[in-house]
């Protein structure tokens, strides 16, 4: 890798922090959560609230403990507890906004560029090249978050030549792009450029929805590739997500209006849609952050990750339609109805060695969704790290859970 004096500049370095985005939504959700909890109290006390199966026993025990408690006194206690929780959330948000950490890592060399897409070379000296394909929704640098939590830099030091795509936000040209343009165009040409740069076996490594892009690109490129690794990549978009599938179908016409009005899917709207996955997550994590020592490594890692989460990019309209309405709403990949450049994407037809990582605690891509892909691939090595969707690539346990098995699999492709 070229040792450049430059460092990576991310928006978080220079701009005021606005997260957790959309902040107003998360604060309103916190307040609405309080109101609904109070509204549901009478029904809960009498056992008429339909709790999730996992909570039914705890809820029954609580209802029993509340049987002799004065309702008004309990309402007052709930209001007091809610107020304390909201104050903790706000304390966490204020602490995040004021935190001195700013990401600053040596910038990798840009070895190819087309429009807003860049191919970044992280160097490394080994018998095989890994070309990382990140999602179009979030920026690539979750794979290079901190010096001590960088999958890309770690692999480059572990006997693998490493490059990654950086899709960046869509520019004027990319706003007219669909997935065909990104996959059969940009990604395919980036594969060609990578083969020129590093004359050795090449594996694509897709992360999250980037795995879907890599899978589709790999089909017609099998003669040029040595393997395909898919990290937390969904395939059955309705597995474990029945309600959200319904919601995405219901909002499809509304989504279309937004796309026509804005000419893109704005970041904050995208973030709001993903907040549906776990509406109180932001509250829980900022309460936790408020309790951390702000000069600790844990707090620094929290801020780095939160900066990345809040540094998302808008989606081009056609990409938003394909990813949200077709994938999440209609489950076109699993149904065999997703085609790129006229070719149906069929993992069943992939003859390449494949590596599938399915984090066991993934709440963004349910394991059942990724398992459907592992089953469809004819020759997949499957690992199930004890980690979450993002923690698998950046977490303190990343090295043991994903990084080493991935490095060993990649190096093995050269044999």
């Amino acid at each position: 890798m070229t040792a450049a004096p430059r460092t990576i500049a991310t928006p978080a370095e220079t701009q005021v922090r606005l997260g957790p985005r959309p902040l107003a939504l998360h604060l309103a959700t916190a307040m609405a959560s309080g109101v609904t909890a109070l509204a549901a109290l009478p029904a809960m006390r009498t056992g008429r609230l339909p709790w999730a199966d996992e909570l039914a026993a705890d809820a029954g025990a609580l209802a029993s403990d509340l049987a002799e408690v004065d309702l008004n006194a309990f309402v007052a206690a709930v209001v007091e507890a809610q107020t304390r929780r909201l104050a903790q959330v706000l304390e966490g948000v204020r602490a995040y906004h004021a935190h001195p950490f700013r990401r600053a890592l040596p910038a990798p060399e840009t070895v190819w560029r087309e429009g807003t897409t860049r191919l970044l070379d992280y160097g490394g000296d080994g018998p095989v090249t890994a070309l990382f394909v990140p999602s179009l929704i979030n920026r690539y640098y979750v794979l290079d978050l901190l010096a001590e939590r960088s999958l890309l830099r770690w692999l480059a030091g572990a006997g693998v030549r490493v490059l990654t795509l950086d899709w960046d936000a869509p520019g004027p040209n990319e706003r007219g792009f669909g997935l065909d343009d990104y996959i059969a165009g940009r990604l395919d040409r980036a594969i060609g450029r990578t083969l020129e740069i590093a004359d050795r076996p090449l594996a694509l490594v897709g992360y999250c929805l980037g795995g879907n892009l890599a899978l589709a690109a790999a089909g017609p490129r099998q003669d040029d590739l040595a393997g395909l690794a898919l990290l937390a990549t969904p395939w059955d978009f309705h597995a474990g997500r029945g309600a959200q599938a319904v919601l995405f179908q219901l909002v499809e016409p509304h989504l279309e209006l937004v796309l026509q009005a804005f000419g893109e899917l704005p970041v904050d709207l995208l973030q709001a849609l993903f907040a549906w996955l776990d509406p109180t997550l932001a509250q829980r994590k900022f309460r936790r952050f408020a309790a951390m020592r702000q000069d600790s490594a844990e707090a620094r890692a929290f801020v780095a990750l939160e900066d990345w989460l809040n540094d998302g990019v808008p989606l081009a309209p056609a990409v938003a339609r394909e990813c949200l309405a077709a994938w999440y709403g209609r489950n076109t990949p699993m149904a065999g109805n997703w085609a790129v450049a006229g070719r149906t994407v069929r993992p069943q037809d992939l003859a390449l060695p494949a590596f599938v990582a399915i984090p066991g605690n993934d709440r963004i891509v349910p394991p059942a969704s990724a398992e459907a892909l592992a089953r469809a691939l004819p020759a997949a090595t499957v690992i199930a790290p004890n980690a979450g969707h993002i923690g698998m690539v950046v977490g303190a346990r990343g090295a043991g859970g994903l990084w080493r098995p991935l490095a060993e699999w990649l190096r093995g492709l050269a044999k």
Partner: protein
Amino acid sequence: MRASRPARMTATAARAYAGAMDDTDELGRLAERYLDLWERQAMLMSGAPAGPEAFAAWIAALGASAVGGGQADDGGTADDRHPG
């Protein structure tokens, strides 16, 4: 937050005060348990492993509770949820 005990207090008053504070602490613990459950419910229902029917039933229960039918311990009826 728990108030500090007044400096001058008879033994009987102190026992009553301690009992009241214990009650307050117990109510606070129950409230925290309830809110923890509520957050986990929001997470699980959004993840919806039980499917859209369970999600819809939960939303319906919230609505019923919020407009009055679920407020009364006698169970209420469809009619008394929408007076007038």
